[in-house]
Protein backbone atom coordinates (compact mmCIF):
# COMPACT_ATOMS: atom_id res chain seq x y z
CA UNK A 1 0.00 0.00 0.00
CA UNK A 2 2.57 2.58 1.09
CA UNK A 3 4.91 1.35 -1.64
CA UNK A 4 2.23 1.97 -4.29
CA UNK A 5 1.52 5.35 -2.76
CA UNK A 6 5.22 6.17 -2.84
CA UNK A 7 5.51 5.26 -6.55
CA UNK A 8 2.41 7.27 -7.35
CA UNK A 9 3.68 10.29 -5.46
CA UNK A 10 7.08 10.02 -7.10
CA UNK A 11 5.34 10.08 -10.48
CA UNK A 12 3.31 13.11 -9.36
CA UNK A 13 6.51 14.79 -8.26
CA UNK A 14 8.13 14.03 -11.62
CA UNK A 15 5.12 15.43 -13.46
CA UNK A 16 5.28 18.62 -11.39
CA UNK A 17 9.03 18.72 -11.93
CA UNK A 18 8.97 18.47 -15.72
CA UNK A 19 6.33 21.22 -15.89
CA UNK A 20 8.57 23.39 -13.73
CA UNK A 21 11.41 22.58 -16.09
CA UNK A 22 9.47 23.94 -19.07
CA UNK A 23 9.06 27.20 -17.14
CA UNK A 24 12.55 27.28 -15.71
CA UNK A 25 14.29 26.49 -19.01
CA UNK A 26 13.14 29.76 -20.59
CA UNK A 27 13.95 31.78 -17.49
CA UNK A 28 17.42 30.39 -17.15
CA UNK A 29 18.20 30.75 -20.89
CA UNK A 30 17.08 34.36 -20.87
CA UNK A 31 19.14 35.03 -17.79
CA UNK A 32 22.17 33.12 -18.99
CA UNK A 33 22.32 34.70 -22.43
CA UNK A 34 20.84 38.16 -21.93
CA UNK A 35 21.42 38.65 -18.20
CA UNK A 36 17.76 39.52 -17.75
CA UNK A 37 15.60 38.65 -14.78
CA UNK A 38 12.09 38.26 -16.13
CA UNK A 39 9.21 38.28 -13.65
CA UNK A 40 6.71 38.32 -16.52
CA UNK A 41 7.58 34.75 -17.48
CA UNK A 42 4.57 33.56 -15.49
CA UNK A 43 2.37 35.78 -17.65
CA UNK A 44 3.52 33.91 -20.75
CA UNK A 45 2.52 30.68 -19.00
CA UNK A 46 -0.91 32.22 -18.43
CA UNK A 47 -1.10 33.39 -22.07
CA UNK A 48 -0.43 29.83 -23.22
CA UNK A 49 -3.14 28.41 -20.97
CA UNK A 50 -5.73 30.96 -22.07
CA UNK A 51 -4.87 30.54 -25.75
CA UNK A 52 -5.22 26.77 -25.39
CA UNK A 53 -8.56 27.10 -23.61
CA UNK A 54 -9.85 29.49 -26.30
CA UNK A 55 -8.68 27.32 -29.20
CA UNK A 56 -10.02 24.15 -27.57
CA UNK A 57 -13.38 25.81 -26.99
CA UNK A 58 -13.73 26.84 -30.63
CA UNK A 59 -12.20 23.83 -32.41
CA UNK A 60 -12.54 21.02 -29.88
CA UNK A 61 -9.09 19.75 -30.73
CA UNK A 62 -6.52 19.38 -27.96
CA UNK A 63 -3.56 19.23 -30.33
CA UNK A 64 -4.67 22.45 -32.04
CA UNK A 65 -5.03 23.97 -28.58
CA UNK A 66 -1.43 23.07 -27.76
CA UNK A 67 -0.28 24.52 -31.08
CA UNK A 68 -2.28 27.65 -30.32
CA UNK A 69 -0.66 27.92 -26.90
CA UNK A 70 2.82 27.60 -28.37
CA UNK A 71 2.10 30.16 -31.09
CA UNK A 72 0.36 32.68 -28.83
CA UNK A 73 3.02 32.53 -26.12
CA UNK A 74 5.87 32.74 -28.63
CA UNK A 75 4.21 35.69 -30.37
CA UNK A 76 3.53 37.45 -27.06
CA UNK A 77 7.13 36.81 -26.04
CA UNK A 78 8.52 38.19 -29.30
CA UNK A 79 6.35 41.32 -29.14
CA UNK A 80 7.25 42.01 -25.52
CA UNK A 81 10.92 41.45 -26.25
CA UNK A 82 10.92 43.87 -29.16
CA UNK A 83 8.84 46.56 -27.45
CA UNK A 84 10.13 46.45 -23.88
CA UNK A 85 12.60 43.79 -22.87
CA UNK A 86 15.42 44.73 -25.23
CA UNK A 87 15.62 48.14 -23.60
CA UNK A 88 16.35 46.43 -20.29
CA UNK A 89 19.38 44.28 -21.12
CA UNK A 90 21.84 47.02 -20.25
CA UNK A 91 19.97 48.03 -17.08
CA UNK A 92 20.56 46.79 -13.57
CA UNK A 93 18.45 44.03 -12.03
CA UNK A 94 16.36 46.51 -10.09
CA UNK A 95 15.03 48.14 -13.27
CA UNK A 96 14.41 44.71 -14.79
CA UNK A 97 12.46 43.56 -11.76
CA UNK A 98 10.30 46.66 -11.77
CA UNK A 99 9.65 46.74 -15.52
CA UNK A 100 8.72 43.09 -15.68
CA UNK A 101 6.58 43.50 -12.54
CA UNK A 102 4.77 46.21 -14.53
CA UNK A 103 4.38 43.76 -17.43
CA UNK A 104 2.69 41.27 -15.08
CA UNK A 105 0.11 43.90 -14.17
CA UNK A 106 -0.52 44.68 -17.83
CA UNK A 107 -0.76 41.03 -18.87
CA UNK A 108 -3.04 40.07 -15.98
CA UNK A 109 -5.42 42.97 -16.46
CA UNK A 110 -5.37 42.54 -20.23
CA UNK A 111 -6.30 38.89 -19.89
CA UNK A 112 -9.03 39.72 -17.39
CA UNK A 113 -10.38 42.29 -19.83
CA UNK A 114 -10.39 39.80 -22.71
CA UNK A 115 -11.64 36.70 -20.91
CA UNK A 116 -13.31 37.98 -17.75
CA UNK A 117 -12.57 37.07 -14.14
CA UNK A 118 -14.09 33.60 -14.17
CA UNK A 119 -11.79 30.62 -14.60
CA UNK A 120 -11.94 28.75 -17.89
CA UNK A 121 -11.78 25.00 -18.18
CA UNK A 122 -9.63 23.03 -20.53
CA UNK A 123 -10.54 19.36 -20.62
CA UNK A 124 -8.19 16.46 -20.94
CA UNK A 125 -9.03 14.96 -24.37
CA UNK A 126 -10.90 11.66 -24.26
CA UNK A 127 -8.01 9.77 -25.87
CA UNK A 128 -5.75 10.80 -22.99
CA UNK A 129 -8.30 10.47 -20.19
CA UNK A 130 -8.51 7.62 -17.75
CA UNK A 131 -5.88 5.58 -15.94
CA UNK A 132 -3.24 3.25 -17.30
CA UNK A 133 -1.82 0.26 -15.54
CA UNK A 134 1.92 0.41 -15.10
CA UNK A 135 4.15 -2.60 -14.39
CA UNK A 136 3.54 -3.75 -10.83
CA UNK A 137 -0.19 -3.12 -11.30
CA UNK A 138 0.09 0.58 -10.45
CA UNK A 139 -2.85 2.64 -11.69
CA UNK A 140 -1.83 6.09 -12.89
CA UNK A 141 -3.67 8.76 -14.94
CA UNK A 142 -2.60 8.48 -18.58
CA UNK A 143 -2.60 12.25 -19.08
CA UNK A 144 -0.10 12.83 -16.27
CA UNK A 145 2.10 10.08 -17.64
CA UNK A 146 1.99 11.71 -21.07
CA UNK A 147 3.00 15.02 -19.50
CA UNK A 148 6.02 13.38 -17.87
CA UNK A 149 7.06 11.77 -21.16
CA UNK A 150 6.41 14.90 -23.20
CA UNK A 151 8.38 16.97 -20.69
CA UNK A 152 11.34 14.61 -20.79
CA UNK A 153 11.23 14.52 -24.61
CA UNK A 154 11.20 18.32 -24.73
CA UNK A 155 14.08 18.46 -22.26
CA UNK A 156 16.07 16.06 -24.44
CA UNK A 157 15.18 18.12 -27.51
CA UNK A 158 16.31 21.30 -25.79
CA UNK A 159 19.65 19.75 -24.84
CA UNK A 160 20.08 18.58 -28.46
CA UNK A 161 19.14 22.03 -29.73
CA UNK A 162 21.72 23.68 -27.52
CA UNK A 163 24.53 21.21 -27.98
CA UNK A 164 24.11 20.25 -31.67
CA UNK A 165 22.46 22.94 -33.74
CA UNK A 166 23.72 26.20 -35.17
CA UNK A 167 21.36 28.28 -33.04
CA UNK A 168 22.52 26.32 -30.01
CA UNK A 169 26.12 27.25 -30.77
CA UNK A 170 25.06 30.87 -31.01
CA UNK A 171 23.21 30.65 -27.70
CA UNK A 172 26.23 29.18 -25.96
CA UNK A 173 28.48 31.75 -27.58
CA UNK A 174 26.10 34.47 -26.41
CA UNK A 175 26.42 33.21 -22.84
CA UNK A 176 30.18 33.21 -23.04
CA UNK A 177 30.86 36.54 -24.75
CA UNK A 178 28.21 38.91 -26.00
CA UNK A 179 30.50 41.38 -27.76
CA UNK A 180 32.47 38.71 -29.56
CA UNK A 181 29.45 36.98 -31.05
CA UNK A 182 28.17 40.32 -32.37
CA UNK A 183 31.61 41.03 -33.81
CA UNK A 184 31.46 37.70 -35.65
CA UNK A 185 28.54 38.99 -37.66
CA UNK A 186 25.64 37.35 -35.87
CA UNK A 187 22.53 39.48 -35.60
CA UNK A 188 22.51 39.60 -31.84
CA UNK A 189 19.17 41.34 -31.40
CA UNK A 190 17.45 38.78 -33.62
CA UNK A 191 19.11 36.00 -31.63
CA UNK A 192 17.81 37.54 -28.40
CA UNK A 193 14.27 37.76 -29.78
CA UNK A 194 14.44 34.11 -30.86
CA UNK A 195 15.69 32.95 -27.45
CA UNK A 196 13.05 34.97 -25.66
CA UNK A 197 10.28 33.64 -27.91
CA UNK A 198 11.59 30.08 -27.44
CA UNK A 199 11.47 30.46 -23.65
CA UNK A 200 8.00 32.00 -23.93
CA UNK A 201 6.75 29.12 -26.08
CA UNK A 202 7.97 26.57 -23.53
CA UNK A 203 6.24 28.50 -20.74
CA UNK A 204 3.05 28.70 -22.82
CA UNK A 205 3.15 24.96 -23.48
CA UNK A 206 3.55 24.31 -19.75
CA UNK A 207 0.57 26.56 -19.08
CA UNK A 208 -1.59 24.70 -21.60
CA UNK A 209 -0.59 21.25 -20.33
CA UNK A 210 -1.20 22.19 -16.71
CA UNK A 211 -4.36 24.07 -17.66
CA UNK A 212 -5.99 20.75 -18.47
CA UNK A 213 -5.41 19.55 -14.89
CA UNK A 214 -6.13 22.77 -13.04
CA UNK A 215 -8.39 25.67 -13.91
CA UNK A 216 -7.24 28.38 -16.30
CA UNK A 217 -7.38 31.73 -14.52
CA UNK A 218 -5.74 35.12 -14.22
CA UNK A 219 -2.78 35.03 -11.86
CA UNK A 220 -2.19 31.29 -12.40
CA UNK A 221 1.36 32.01 -13.53
CA UNK A 222 2.58 33.70 -10.38
CA UNK A 223 2.95 30.76 -7.99
CA UNK A 224 4.62 28.79 -10.78
CA UNK A 225 6.91 31.72 -11.54
CA UNK A 226 8.15 31.86 -7.96
CA UNK A 227 8.75 28.11 -8.00
CA UNK A 228 10.58 28.40 -11.31
CA UNK A 229 12.83 31.02 -9.74
CA UNK A 230 13.49 28.70 -6.83
CA UNK A 231 14.39 26.04 -9.39
CA UNK A 232 16.88 28.12 -11.35
CA UNK A 233 18.45 29.52 -8.20
CA UNK A 234 18.92 25.99 -6.87
CA UNK A 235 20.26 24.75 -10.20
CA UNK A 236 22.47 27.75 -10.84
CA UNK A 237 21.21 30.59 -12.97
CA UNK A 238 21.99 30.16 -16.65
CA UNK A 239 22.45 26.40 -16.54
CA UNK A 240 19.93 24.26 -18.43
CA UNK A 241 21.24 21.16 -16.71
CA UNK A 242 20.82 22.94 -13.38
CA UNK A 243 17.26 23.83 -14.34
CA UNK A 244 16.46 20.17 -15.04
CA UNK A 245 18.03 18.88 -11.83
CA UNK A 246 16.53 21.76 -9.84
CA UNK A 247 13.02 21.27 -11.18
CA UNK A 248 12.98 17.55 -10.50
CA UNK A 249 14.39 18.20 -7.03
CA UNK A 250 11.77 20.87 -6.29
CA UNK A 251 8.93 18.83 -7.83
CA UNK A 252 9.77 15.74 -5.82
CA UNK A 253 10.53 17.57 -2.56
CA UNK A 254 7.30 19.52 -2.69
CA UNK A 255 5.07 16.60 -3.64
CA UNK A 256 6.62 14.04 -1.32
CA UNK A 257 6.88 16.56 1.52
CA UNK A 258 3.20 17.38 1.33
CA UNK A 259 2.24 13.71 1.51
CA UNK A 260 4.75 12.30 3.92
CA UNK A 261 5.63 15.09 6.35
CA UNK A 262 2.19 15.09 8.01
CA UNK A 263 2.50 11.29 8.36
CA UNK A 264 5.99 11.63 9.77
CA UNK A 265 4.80 14.11 12.38
CA UNK A 266 1.89 11.80 13.06
CA UNK A 267 4.37 9.43 14.68
CA UNK A 268 5.21 12.05 17.29
CA UNK A 269 2.21 14.36 17.64
CA UNK A 270 -1.54 13.91 17.85
CA UNK A 271 -3.25 13.71 14.42
CA UNK A 272 -4.65 17.25 14.10
CA UNK A 273 -1.45 18.92 15.27
CA UNK A 274 0.58 16.65 12.99
CA UNK A 275 -1.49 17.62 9.98
CA UNK A 276 -1.10 21.35 10.64
CA UNK A 277 2.57 21.30 11.53
CA UNK A 278 3.35 18.87 8.72
CA UNK A 279 1.39 20.80 6.12
CA UNK A 280 2.84 24.18 7.00
CA UNK A 281 6.36 22.80 7.14
CA UNK A 282 5.80 20.97 3.83
CA UNK A 283 4.85 24.18 2.03
CA UNK A 284 8.00 25.82 3.39
CA UNK A 285 10.16 22.85 2.49
CA UNK A 286 11.36 23.93 -0.96
CA UNK A 287 12.29 27.37 0.33
CA UNK A 288 14.24 25.74 3.15
CA UNK A 289 15.89 23.52 0.52
CA UNK A 290 16.78 26.57 -1.56
CA UNK A 291 18.16 28.51 1.39
CA UNK A 292 20.17 25.47 2.44
CA UNK A 293 21.65 24.94 -1.01
CA UNK A 294 22.55 28.60 -1.39
CA UNK A 295 24.26 28.66 1.97
CA UNK A 296 26.38 25.68 0.89
CA UNK A 297 26.85 26.82 -2.70
CA UNK A 298 26.08 30.54 -3.10
CA UNK A 299 25.70 30.26 -6.89
CA UNK A 300 23.56 27.14 -7.06
CA UNK A 301 24.38 23.53 -7.86
CA UNK A 302 25.61 24.10 -11.41
CA UNK A 303 26.25 27.85 -11.29
CA UNK A 304 29.49 29.15 -12.66
CA UNK A 305 29.63 32.71 -11.35
Amino acid sequence: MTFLLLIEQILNGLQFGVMLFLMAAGLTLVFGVMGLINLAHGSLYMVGAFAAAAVAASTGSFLLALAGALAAAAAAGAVVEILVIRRLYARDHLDQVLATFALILIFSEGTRWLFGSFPLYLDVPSWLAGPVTLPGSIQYPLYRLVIIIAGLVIAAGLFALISRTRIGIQIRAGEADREMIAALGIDISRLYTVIFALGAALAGLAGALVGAIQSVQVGMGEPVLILAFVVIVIGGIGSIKGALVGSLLVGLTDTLGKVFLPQLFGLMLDPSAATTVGASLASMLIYILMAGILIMRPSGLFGSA
Partner: protein
Amino acid sequence: MAATRERLINAAILFALLAVPLWAWIADEPFVITLATRIAILALAGVGLNIALGLGGLVSFGHAAFFGIGGYAMGILASHAQDYTPLMEWPLAIEGTRSMPVIWLVAMAAAALAALVIGALSLRTSGVYFIMVTLAFAQMLYYFTIGWPAYGGEDGLSIYVRNVFPGMNTLDPVQFLAICYALLAVALFFTARLARSPFGLALAAARQNAERVETVGLRPFRLRLVAFVISGAITGLAGALYADLNRFVSPAMFNWHTSGEIMVFVILGGVARLFGPVAGAALFILLENYLGGLSDYWQAYLGFLLLGVVLFARGGLIGTLAGREVADG
Protein backbone atom coordinates in the same frame (compact mmCIF):
# COMPACT_ATOMS: atom_id res chain seq x y z
CA MET B 1 21.88 73.33 -7.57
CA ALA B 2 20.10 70.04 -7.98
CA ALA B 3 20.50 69.39 -4.27
CA THR B 4 18.74 72.64 -3.33
CA ARG B 5 15.96 71.85 -5.75
CA GLU B 6 15.59 68.44 -4.14
CA ARG B 7 15.42 70.06 -0.72
CA LEU B 8 12.61 72.34 -1.94
CA ILE B 9 10.70 69.36 -3.34
CA ASN B 10 11.17 67.49 -0.08
CA ALA B 11 9.79 70.43 1.88
CA ALA B 12 6.82 70.63 -0.50
CA ILE B 13 6.07 66.92 -0.05
CA LEU B 14 6.30 67.16 3.73
CA PHE B 15 4.06 70.21 3.69
CA ALA B 16 1.48 68.65 1.36
CA LEU B 17 1.35 65.51 3.49
CA LEU B 18 0.49 67.68 6.48
CA ALA B 19 -1.63 70.37 4.81
CA VAL B 20 -3.95 68.13 2.83
CA PRO B 21 -5.19 66.12 5.81
CA LEU B 22 -5.50 69.31 7.87
CA TRP B 23 -7.72 70.71 5.16
CA ALA B 24 -9.63 67.43 5.07
CA TRP B 25 -10.08 67.58 8.84
CA ILE B 26 -11.53 71.07 8.66
CA ALA B 27 -13.68 70.18 5.64
CA ASP B 28 -14.71 66.93 7.38
CA GLU B 29 -13.48 64.48 4.76
CA PRO B 30 -12.47 61.42 6.80
CA PHE B 31 -11.66 59.42 3.66
CA VAL B 32 -8.85 61.79 2.72
CA ILE B 33 -7.41 61.47 6.21
CA THR B 34 -7.40 57.67 5.96
CA LEU B 35 -5.75 57.96 2.57
CA ALA B 36 -3.04 60.22 3.99
CA THR B 37 -2.52 57.76 6.86
CA ARG B 38 -2.08 54.92 4.39
CA ILE B 39 0.44 57.00 2.48
CA ALA B 40 2.39 57.86 5.63
CA ILE B 41 2.53 54.23 6.77
CA LEU B 42 3.48 52.77 3.40
CA ALA B 43 6.02 55.55 2.93
CA LEU B 44 7.53 54.47 6.25
CA ALA B 45 7.84 50.91 4.91
CA GLY B 46 9.53 52.36 1.84
CA VAL B 47 11.88 54.47 3.96
CA GLY B 48 12.92 51.23 5.63
CA LEU B 49 13.56 49.46 2.35
CA ASN B 50 15.38 52.50 0.98
CA ILE B 51 18.10 52.09 3.62
CA ALA B 52 18.90 48.64 2.27
CA LEU B 53 18.13 49.37 -1.37
CA GLY B 54 19.27 52.95 -1.80
CA LEU B 55 22.11 53.31 0.68
CA GLY B 56 23.30 49.72 0.77
CA GLY B 57 22.51 48.69 -2.82
CA LEU B 58 20.85 45.54 -1.47
CA VAL B 59 17.95 44.66 -3.75
CA SER B 60 15.70 42.92 -1.23
CA PHE B 61 12.62 41.36 -2.79
CA GLY B 62 11.55 40.06 0.59
CA HIS B 63 10.73 43.08 2.72
CA ALA B 64 7.18 41.77 2.99
CA ALA B 65 8.70 39.45 5.60
CA PHE B 66 9.43 42.36 7.94
CA PHE B 67 6.21 44.17 7.10
CA GLY B 68 4.28 41.02 7.93
CA ILE B 69 6.24 40.31 11.11
CA GLY B 70 5.44 43.83 12.31
CA GLY B 71 1.80 43.27 11.47
CA TYR B 72 1.64 39.96 13.26
CA ALA B 73 3.48 41.38 16.29
CA MET B 74 0.61 43.81 16.63
CA GLY B 75 -2.01 41.18 15.84
CA ILE B 76 -0.71 38.63 18.32
CA LEU B 77 -0.18 41.07 21.21
CA ALA B 78 -3.51 42.82 20.67
CA SER B 79 -5.52 39.62 20.21
CA HIS B 80 -4.26 38.27 23.53
CA ALA B 81 -5.11 41.57 25.19
CA GLN B 82 -8.59 41.54 23.67
CA ASP B 83 -9.27 37.93 24.75
CA TYR B 84 -7.65 38.42 28.18
CA THR B 85 -5.50 35.36 27.57
CA PRO B 86 -1.80 35.33 28.40
CA LEU B 87 0.58 35.16 25.45
CA MET B 88 2.88 32.83 27.31
CA GLU B 89 2.91 31.34 30.81
CA TRP B 90 6.18 29.54 30.86
CA PRO B 91 9.11 30.24 31.35
CA LEU B 92 7.84 33.72 32.09
CA ALA B 93 4.32 35.05 32.12
CA ILE B 94 3.75 37.45 29.22
CA GLU B 95 0.44 39.21 28.77
CA GLY B 96 -0.84 40.69 25.54
CA THR B 97 -0.94 44.44 25.31
CA ARG B 98 -2.87 47.21 23.63
CA SER B 99 -0.28 49.87 24.15
CA MET B 100 1.10 51.14 20.85
CA PRO B 101 4.61 52.02 22.05
CA VAL B 102 5.09 48.51 23.45
CA ILE B 103 3.73 46.98 20.26
CA TRP B 104 6.05 49.12 18.15
CA LEU B 105 9.08 48.08 20.16
CA VAL B 106 8.15 44.42 19.93
CA ALA B 107 7.43 44.74 16.19
CA MET B 108 10.77 46.44 15.54
CA ALA B 109 12.69 43.99 17.70
CA ALA B 110 11.05 40.98 16.03
CA ALA B 111 11.60 42.37 12.54
CA ALA B 112 15.21 43.27 13.40
CA LEU B 113 15.84 39.76 14.68
CA ALA B 114 14.33 38.26 11.53
CA ALA B 115 16.40 40.63 9.41
CA LEU B 116 19.52 39.59 11.30
CA VAL B 117 18.90 35.92 10.52
CA ILE B 118 17.68 36.44 6.94
CA GLY B 119 20.42 38.97 6.24
CA ALA B 120 23.21 36.85 7.69
CA LEU B 121 22.18 33.99 5.39
CA SER B 122 21.20 36.00 2.28
CA LEU B 123 24.20 38.33 2.27
CA ARG B 124 26.44 35.37 1.50
CA THR B 125 25.00 35.65 -2.01
CA SER B 126 24.77 38.66 -4.28
CA GLY B 127 23.04 39.90 -7.41
CA VAL B 128 20.07 37.90 -8.63
CA TYR B 129 20.70 35.24 -6.03
CA PHE B 130 20.24 37.80 -3.27
CA ILE B 131 16.98 39.01 -4.82
CA MET B 132 15.69 35.47 -5.00
CA VAL B 133 16.84 34.30 -1.55
CA THR B 134 15.19 37.26 0.16
CA LEU B 135 12.05 36.47 -1.84
CA ALA B 136 12.26 32.84 -0.74
CA PHE B 137 12.47 33.78 2.95
CA ALA B 138 9.40 35.99 2.65
CA GLN B 139 7.51 33.21 0.87
CA MET B 140 8.54 30.81 3.61
CA LEU B 141 6.90 33.04 6.21
CA TYR B 142 3.89 33.51 3.92
CA TYR B 143 3.24 29.78 3.75
CA PHE B 144 4.03 29.41 7.44
CA THR B 145 1.34 31.93 8.46
CA ILE B 146 -1.16 30.31 6.08
CA GLY B 147 -0.57 26.94 7.69
CA TRP B 148 -0.43 28.20 11.28
CA PRO B 149 -3.95 28.06 12.70
CA ALA B 150 -3.32 29.65 16.12
CA TYR B 151 -3.71 33.20 14.79
CA GLY B 152 -6.30 32.80 12.07
CA GLY B 153 -4.24 30.95 9.47
CA GLU B 154 -5.31 31.81 5.96
CA ASP B 155 -8.26 33.94 7.16
CA GLY B 156 -6.12 36.38 9.10
CA LEU B 157 -6.86 37.96 12.42
CA SER B 158 -9.23 40.82 13.25
CA ILE B 159 -8.60 43.27 16.07
CA TYR B 160 -11.81 44.99 17.06
CA VAL B 161 -10.53 48.21 18.60
CA ARG B 162 -7.48 50.19 17.61
CA ASN B 163 -4.65 50.05 20.11
CA VAL B 164 -4.03 52.93 22.51
CA PHE B 165 -1.37 55.58 22.80
CA PRO B 166 -0.99 57.43 26.09
CA GLY B 167 -2.59 60.87 25.98
CA MET B 168 -4.21 60.47 22.57
CA ASN B 169 -7.46 59.18 21.18
CA THR B 170 -6.28 56.82 18.44
CA LEU B 171 -9.83 56.16 17.28
CA ASP B 172 -9.92 59.69 15.95
CA PRO B 173 -8.50 59.43 12.41
CA VAL B 174 -6.63 62.73 12.65
CA GLN B 175 -4.87 61.77 15.86
CA PHE B 176 -3.86 58.39 14.43
CA LEU B 177 -2.58 60.19 11.33
CA ALA B 178 -0.56 62.51 13.55
CA ILE B 179 1.10 59.50 15.20
CA CYS B 180 1.97 57.93 11.84
CA TYR B 181 3.14 61.23 10.44
CA ALA B 182 5.39 61.85 13.45
CA LEU B 183 6.93 58.39 13.15
CA LEU B 184 7.53 58.93 9.44
CA ALA B 185 9.20 62.26 10.18
CA VAL B 186 11.41 60.64 12.83
CA ALA B 187 12.36 57.86 10.39
CA LEU B 188 13.21 60.40 7.68
CA PHE B 189 15.31 62.45 10.07
CA PHE B 190 17.06 59.30 11.24
CA THR B 191 17.72 58.20 7.63
CA ALA B 192 19.15 61.61 6.73
CA ARG B 193 21.49 61.49 9.73
CA LEU B 194 22.39 57.87 9.01
CA ALA B 195 23.33 58.65 5.40
CA ARG B 196 25.76 61.34 6.57
CA SER B 197 27.17 59.38 9.49
CA PRO B 198 30.49 57.52 9.22
CA PHE B 199 28.46 54.31 9.03
CA GLY B 200 26.31 55.63 6.18
CA LEU B 201 29.34 56.82 4.25
CA ALA B 202 31.08 53.49 4.69
CA LEU B 203 27.91 51.70 3.58
CA ALA B 204 27.64 53.85 0.45
CA ALA B 205 31.31 53.18 -0.24
CA ALA B 206 30.72 49.44 0.13
CA ARG B 207 27.95 49.72 -2.43
CA GLN B 208 30.19 51.53 -4.88
CA ASN B 209 33.36 49.56 -4.42
CA ALA B 210 33.44 46.73 -1.90
CA GLU B 211 37.12 45.86 -2.51
CA ARG B 212 38.34 49.34 -1.62
CA VAL B 213 36.26 49.37 1.53
CA GLU B 214 37.85 46.10 2.49
CA THR B 215 41.36 47.44 1.86
CA VAL B 216 40.82 50.26 4.33
CA GLY B 217 39.91 47.69 6.95
CA LEU B 218 36.12 47.78 7.00
CA ARG B 219 34.00 44.70 6.49
CA PRO B 220 31.31 45.19 3.82
CA PHE B 221 29.39 42.14 5.06
CA ARG B 222 29.01 43.62 8.52
CA LEU B 223 28.05 47.07 7.18
CA ARG B 224 25.41 45.55 4.93
CA LEU B 225 24.05 43.33 7.66
CA VAL B 226 23.61 46.28 10.02
CA ALA B 227 21.90 48.26 7.24
CA PHE B 228 19.63 45.30 6.50
CA VAL B 229 18.67 44.98 10.18
CA ILE B 230 17.86 48.70 10.52
CA SER B 231 15.94 48.52 7.26
CA GLY B 232 13.94 45.52 8.42
CA ALA B 233 13.14 47.10 11.79
CA ILE B 234 11.69 50.25 10.19
CA THR B 235 9.63 48.23 7.74
CA GLY B 236 8.44 46.13 10.68
CA LEU B 237 7.27 49.26 12.49
CA ALA B 238 5.34 50.23 9.35
CA GLY B 239 3.76 46.77 9.34
CA ALA B 240 2.53 47.22 12.93
CA LEU B 241 1.02 50.61 12.05
CA TYR B 242 -0.58 49.21 8.90
CA ALA B 243 -2.17 46.43 10.92
CA ASP B 244 -3.48 49.05 13.34
CA LEU B 245 -4.88 51.12 10.49
CA ASN B 246 -6.84 48.20 9.08
CA ARG B 247 -7.37 46.49 12.48
CA PHE B 248 -6.64 43.32 10.56
CA VAL B 249 -3.61 41.17 9.77
CA SER B 250 -3.46 38.36 7.24
CA PRO B 251 -0.84 36.31 5.41
CA ALA B 252 -1.31 38.69 2.46
CA MET B 253 1.08 41.04 4.25
CA PHE B 254 3.80 38.47 3.59
CA ASN B 255 2.86 37.96 -0.05
CA TRP B 256 5.47 38.75 -2.69
CA HIS B 257 3.13 41.38 -4.09
CA THR B 258 3.70 43.35 -0.89
CA SER B 259 7.46 43.16 -1.41
CA GLY B 260 6.94 44.27 -4.99
CA GLU B 261 4.79 47.20 -3.96
CA ILE B 262 7.19 48.46 -1.29
CA MET B 263 9.91 48.28 -3.92
CA VAL B 264 7.70 50.15 -6.37
CA PHE B 265 7.25 52.99 -3.87
CA VAL B 266 10.99 53.39 -3.59
CA ILE B 267 11.69 53.20 -7.30
CA LEU B 268 8.72 55.31 -8.34
CA GLY B 269 9.89 58.07 -6.03
CA GLY B 270 13.59 57.68 -6.70
CA VAL B 271 16.10 55.19 -5.29
CA ALA B 272 18.44 56.56 -2.60
CA ARG B 273 16.52 59.84 -2.45
CA LEU B 274 15.58 60.68 1.10
CA PHE B 275 11.98 61.49 0.19
CA GLY B 276 11.77 59.01 -2.69
CA PRO B 277 9.60 56.49 -0.81
CA VAL B 278 7.28 59.25 0.41
CA ALA B 279 6.75 60.64 -3.09
CA GLY B 280 6.44 57.11 -4.50
CA ALA B 281 3.92 55.91 -1.91
CA ALA B 282 1.85 59.08 -2.32
CA LEU B 283 1.79 58.76 -6.09
CA PHE B 284 0.99 55.05 -5.92
CA ILE B 285 -1.88 55.41 -3.43
CA LEU B 286 -3.35 58.41 -5.25
CA LEU B 287 -3.18 56.59 -8.58
CA GLU B 288 -4.67 53.47 -7.04
CA ASN B 289 -7.56 55.56 -5.81
CA TYR B 290 -8.02 57.72 -8.84
CA LEU B 291 -7.55 55.02 -11.48
CA GLY B 292 -9.48 52.51 -9.37
CA GLY B 293 -12.49 54.80 -9.57
CA LEU B 294 -11.99 55.30 -13.27
CA SER B 295 -11.69 51.73 -14.47
CA ASP B 296 -11.88 48.18 -13.18
CA TYR B 297 -8.63 47.50 -14.95
CA TRP B 298 -6.64 50.25 -13.24
CA GLN B 299 -3.70 47.98 -12.55
CA ALA B 300 -3.01 47.85 -16.28
CA TYR B 301 -2.68 51.64 -16.34
CA LEU B 302 -0.45 51.43 -13.31
CA GLY B 303 1.63 48.89 -15.21
CA PHE B 304 2.04 51.19 -18.18
CA LEU B 305 2.98 54.06 -15.88
CA LEU B 306 5.60 51.97 -14.07
CA LEU B 307 6.98 50.81 -17.37
CA GLY B 308 7.23 54.42 -18.51
CA VAL B 309 9.04 55.41 -15.32
CA VAL B 310 11.57 52.59 -15.65
CA LEU B 311 12.19 53.05 -19.37
CA PHE B 312 12.12 56.80 -19.70
CA ALA B 313 12.18 58.56 -16.31
CA ARG B 314 15.17 56.97 -14.62
CA GLY B 315 15.70 58.28 -11.12
CA GLY B 316 11.98 58.22 -10.39
CA LEU B 317 9.75 61.15 -9.58
CA ILE B 318 12.26 63.08 -7.50
CA GLY B 319 15.06 62.27 -9.91
CA THR B 320 13.03 63.70 -12.77
CA LEU B 321 12.03 66.82 -10.89
CA ALA B 322 15.29 67.54 -9.11
CA GLY B 323 17.84 66.50 -11.72
CA ARG B 324 20.10 63.49 -11.82
CA GLU B 325 22.64 64.44 -9.20
CA VAL B 326 22.12 62.42 -6.05
CA ALA B 327 22.74 64.58 -3.02
CA ASP B 328 23.65 61.84 -0.60
CA GLY B 329 26.17 60.00 -2.77
